[in-house]
């Protein structure tokens, strides 16, 4: 890596830490630290939701998949766009309002407990445990991806790269909490957007005209232009089903809960979906162009198609910024997941079960120390670069989508839903994802989120209708938002 790119990159990391320092004094209470005191503006909510959602997949995974297999990979982008749109359209404003009305709930387990008046604490413990378990693995996978990026960019060893990446994320998350994470995600979202907008424009100039580019792709394999090539109905449904995952992702739903007012949701939705559509287009285009660009010398690792193109095509200063954008994509997800884990430990376990009367200052410090503790666990998991944690991303996405998604949706829209229904939904979704993942052949090749989502929904319906109707106080809160 050349000096200009290194300087740009280090400057970028310094800016991230500066965000942490800047927002340190705004984290006086636990709701400030883990939900920013619900003061997010529409632009920050939109881009931070997008950036924390997409992770390294947007700049590494998707371009790599299109580069390796062609335009048939577009189905996942379509599924994600529709899922994100529906999430903003039907979940965001309602969740924002209901979480504040149910005792100012600041985490999903907190919201579900209060929504169903669960005195047994079972729902809180079960959902917070699921969050900690899945996010520890999810965070570890992000750290592995970040370390590999550091490794290939700077030529460092894997372990120093892992420590450096995790160190920067922990510093600004530890100091500034949710506001630092959201603002760094906003900044990172802009970088990712610019990178994915700039690259296609420059690549079109490089190829001079569209025909030259498509002829180059056709020369490699005409099937790369066919969206149905090598795709079965199960394959297309599996890729589209990724969109279902949005309804249950705690780090994305936290942005909805933190937006300043439900009034800001339509504007945030427009910004967020616009960002997503252009970014996905840019990612697909980069992978597509890569097919022609590397026709003579195919890349050993398709996921590095964007990175290698950046280094070969762009000015070193611009390359440094674009490389920072790739690392941004990874960091913006890891920081959000760290903070959700921290909120589960500080709010759901420490305050919820152990020290209900703990002071603001004590809770904020428990939150901060939880960030460090979860980061250490994730580091231990990620220490072995050959660990299969990267493959767990799809599994964790399905796990959250199937176990939390239907429960959140029904809790927002169905008055008759009961505590038993909520518990049955969480357990059925999680178990279906775990079991389906180990089955093979025919319909069992379907991405586990789809059967998990359907069975979880059926369990909610069945158990709610077979249990006693919710109490008058439970339905009263629900009725207030009708």
């Amino acid at each position, binding site marked *: 890596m050349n000096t200009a790119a290194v300087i740009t990159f280090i400057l970028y990391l310094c800016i991230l830490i500066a965000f942490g320092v800047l927002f340190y004094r705004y984290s*006086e*209470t*636990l*709701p*400030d630290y883990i*939900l920013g*005191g*619900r003061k997010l503006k529409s632009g920050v909510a939109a881009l931070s939701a997008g950036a924390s959602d997409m992770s390294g997949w947007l700049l590494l995974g998707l371009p790599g998949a299109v580069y390796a297999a062609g*335009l048939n990979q*577009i189905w996942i*982008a*379509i599924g994600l*766009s*529709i899922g*994100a*749109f529906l999430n*903003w*359209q*039907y979940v965001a*404003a*309602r969740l*924002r*309002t209901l979480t*504040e*009305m*149910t*005792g*100012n709930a*600041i985490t999903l387990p907190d919201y579900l407990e209060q929504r169903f008046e669960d005195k047994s604490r079972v729902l809180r413990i079960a959902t917070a445990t699921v969050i900690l378990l899945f996010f520890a693995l999810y965070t570890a996978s992000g750290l592995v991806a970040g370390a590999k990026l550091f490794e290939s960019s700077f030529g460092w060893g894997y372990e120093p790269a892992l420590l450096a990446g995790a160190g920067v994320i922990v510093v600004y998350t530890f100091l500034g909490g949710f506001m630092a994470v959201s603002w760094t995600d906003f900044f990172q979202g802009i970088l990712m957007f610019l990178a994915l907008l700039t690259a296609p424009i420059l690549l079109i100039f490089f190829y001079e005209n*569209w025909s030259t580019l*498509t002829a180059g*792709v*056709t020369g490699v394999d*005409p099937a790369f*232009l*066919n969206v149905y*090539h090598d795709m079965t109905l199960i394959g297309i449904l599996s890729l589209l089903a990724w969109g279902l995952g949005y309804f249950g992702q705690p780090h994305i739903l936290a942005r909805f809960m933190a937006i*300043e*007012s*439900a*009034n800001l*949701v*339509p*504007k945030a*939705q*427009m910004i967020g*979906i*616009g960002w997503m*559509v252009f970014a*996905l*287009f840019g990612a697909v285009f980069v992978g597509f162009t890569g097919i022609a660009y590397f026709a003579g010398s195919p890349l050993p690792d398709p996921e590095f198609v964007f990175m290698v193109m950046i280094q070969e095509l762009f000015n070193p200063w611009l390359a440094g910024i674009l490389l920072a954008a790739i690392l941004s994509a990874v960091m913006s997800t890891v920081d959000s997941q760290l903070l959700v884990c921290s909120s589960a430990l500080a709010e759901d376990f420490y*305050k919820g079960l152990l020290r209900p009367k*703990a*002071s*603001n200052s004590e809770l904020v410090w428990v939150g901060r120390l939880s960030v460090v503790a979860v980061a250490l666990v994730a580091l231990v998991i990620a220490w072995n670069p050959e660990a299969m944690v990267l493959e767990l991303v799809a599994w964790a996405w399905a796990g959250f989508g199937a176990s939390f998604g239907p429960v959140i949706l029904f809790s927002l*829209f169905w008055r008759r839903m009961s505590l038993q229904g909520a518990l049955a939904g969480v357990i059925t979704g999680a178990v279906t994802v775990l079991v389906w993942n180990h089955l093979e052949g025919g319909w069992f090749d379907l991405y586990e989120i789809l059967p998990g989502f359907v069975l979880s929904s059926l369990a909610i319906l069945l158990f709610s209708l077979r249990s006693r109707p919710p109490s008058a106080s439970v339905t009263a*809160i629900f009725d*207030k*938002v*009708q």
Partner: protein
Amino acid sequence: MEETTLPIHSWFWLFAPMIAVFVLSILNYLRKRGSADVTGFGVSGKSASETDAHTDAHTDAPMEDRS
């Protein structure tokens, strides 16, 4: 039979579902701008702490007072 060419206008159709959700988001914003009911499901555009319905003593507590 495999495609051998991809006219530039085909990209529009490839991305049509994504463009559609973006257009719907813009229309939704324009329609809801200034409306009290931002979700179309009767949810007030105000934050919960601003609503008259917010009578529960627990929920009345400002966020900084919760703990």
